């Protein structure tokens, strides 16, 4: 919500004049933006409200829509609409998109002007926060078909364990027309649980149970191994589907290892989701950037990478230098630990690395904590699984 600061300033000015303000928290408009994923129950949606209060620094009270999205549907189905009601609950003004400048002008007419309008700067709203200290951008994003529609996903309860991972399922429109097409499955960690993948354990696995009237290929899958110990990137899959009967849902069971650093646990989790063959009208749209349209043959054209290649990626280019900062140097083991731009710490083998600075060659013992370096990685690893650095240039 980009207009929160302006709305907060208007609230500051008009609440003392007897106007009451409420935000209505609704289904996510753009799931996965800043990592946020759709809640699966009211308790989780209320967690979103708390997160919004905290991260946006709002003073205006929040009302939370029901999980059936009654308020959203009953008041026009728009993501950022705005209403002014009179004291009898009648609509005086409505807008499909909130416009704070116009809202202020309306209130000025309704209850009178404000002598000194509050400025946004005076509100001391919080700066954007970084939520996670684990790596992101280390797992290759899938090259997805251009047109995907969100499907209704239900969770199959099994005990009190929260769904740390949310399944996003999207289907090609061809599936609803001919029964044949591709299904996107994205397993997204819910940032509100502060959990990350444990990459020292087995990668995420899924299994799909379909009725005899559906064929899914593959019906089992495993996420790729990731070099960094922990990350929070989604695990994504594309599944080919051939449906004879759209009334039969798919059941997807997923197994993964999750860790919570603050609570000090790492554990295996098994959870099940049910995918219904219905477009979810409240599923929102994912901002994936400009995807190339599918060609006539149905094959997606290559997508431009939207991230910096990281060491350990299948796609990492060995010759492309990566900026980093030295965390520690182990002279005996001939290794260094560095902090990468995505805030993950990675240990490299530097036994055969060419070390340089602006003046020429460098010795390992000359490197110190916080030194800024450029790394040239190879695709080779030592016996301990550490990536071997080809070059290191001290900046």
């Amino acid at each position, binding site marked *: 919500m980009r207009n929160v600061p302006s709305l907060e300033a208007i609230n500051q000015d008009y609440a003392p004049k*007897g106007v009451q303000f409420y935000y209505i928290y609704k289904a996510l408009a753009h799931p996965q933006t800043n990592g946020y994923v759709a809640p699966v129950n009211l308790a989780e949606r209320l967690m979103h*409200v708390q997160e919004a209060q905290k991260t946006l620094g709002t003073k205006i009270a929040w009302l939370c829509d029901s999980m059936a999205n009654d308020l959203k549907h009953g008041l026009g189905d728009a993501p950022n609409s705005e209403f002014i009601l009179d004291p009898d609950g009648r609509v005086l003004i409505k807008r499909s998109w909130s416009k704070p400048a116009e809202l202020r002008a309306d209130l000025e007419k309704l209850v009178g002007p404000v002598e000194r309008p509050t400025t946004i700067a005076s509100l001391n709203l919080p700066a954007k926060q970084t939520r996670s200290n684990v790596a992101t951008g280390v797992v290759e994003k899938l090259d997805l078909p251009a047109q995907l529609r969100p499907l209704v996903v239900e969770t199959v309860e099994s005990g009190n364990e929260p769904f740390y991972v949310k399944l996003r399922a999207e289907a090609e429109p061809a599936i609803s027309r001919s029964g044949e097409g591709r299904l996107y499955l994205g397993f997204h960690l819910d940032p509100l649980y502060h959990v990350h993948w444990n990459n020292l354990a087995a990668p995420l696995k899924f299994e799909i149970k379909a009725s005899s009237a559906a064929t899914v290929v593959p019906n089992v899958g495993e996420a790729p191994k990731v070099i960094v110990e922990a990350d929070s990137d989604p695990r994504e899959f594309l599944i080919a589907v051939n449906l004879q009967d759209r009334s039969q849902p798919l059941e997807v069971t997923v197994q993964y290892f999750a860790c919570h650093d603050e609570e000090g646990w790492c554990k295996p989790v098994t959870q099940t989701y049910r995918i219904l063959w219905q477009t979810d009208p409240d599923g929102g749209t994912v901002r994936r950037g400009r995807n190339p349209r599918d060609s006539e043959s149905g094959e997606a054209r290559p997508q431009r990478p939207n991230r910096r290649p990281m060491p350990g990626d299948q796609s990492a280019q060995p010759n492309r230098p990566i900026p980093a900062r030295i965390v520690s140097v182990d002279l005996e083991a001939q290794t260094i630990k560095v902090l990468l731009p995505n805030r993950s710490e990675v240990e490299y083998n530097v036994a055969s690395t060419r070390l340089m600075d602006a003046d020429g060659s460098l010795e390992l013992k000359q490197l110190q904590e916080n030194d800024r370096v450029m790394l040239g990685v190879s695709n080779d690893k030592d016996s301990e699984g550490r990536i071997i650095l080809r070059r290191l240039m001290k900046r």
Partner: protein
Amino acid sequence: MQRLTGWAWCLVFLMSICLWGATTPSWAQPPGRAESPRDAVDSAFNRKSPEVGDTVPNLAAYRADGSTVRLHDLKGKHTVLVFGCLT
């Protein structure tokens, strides 16, 4: 009269096309031009939201502490409602 060069003819031709596009009625435009997502939101909102002058439906919502509140419970003051979410 000075003869028009090739470039000038091109310009006249392009302007004619623009003029045709601007004045052609919608039924004569080529089919398949989809409504933009923003326009789709606007038209759905105009269709589905309560009209100006109507009382808002008495729908239930939840306060941040989980307690239930209905829209008619907010009567008594001028009220501003703004929809939003974390994304």
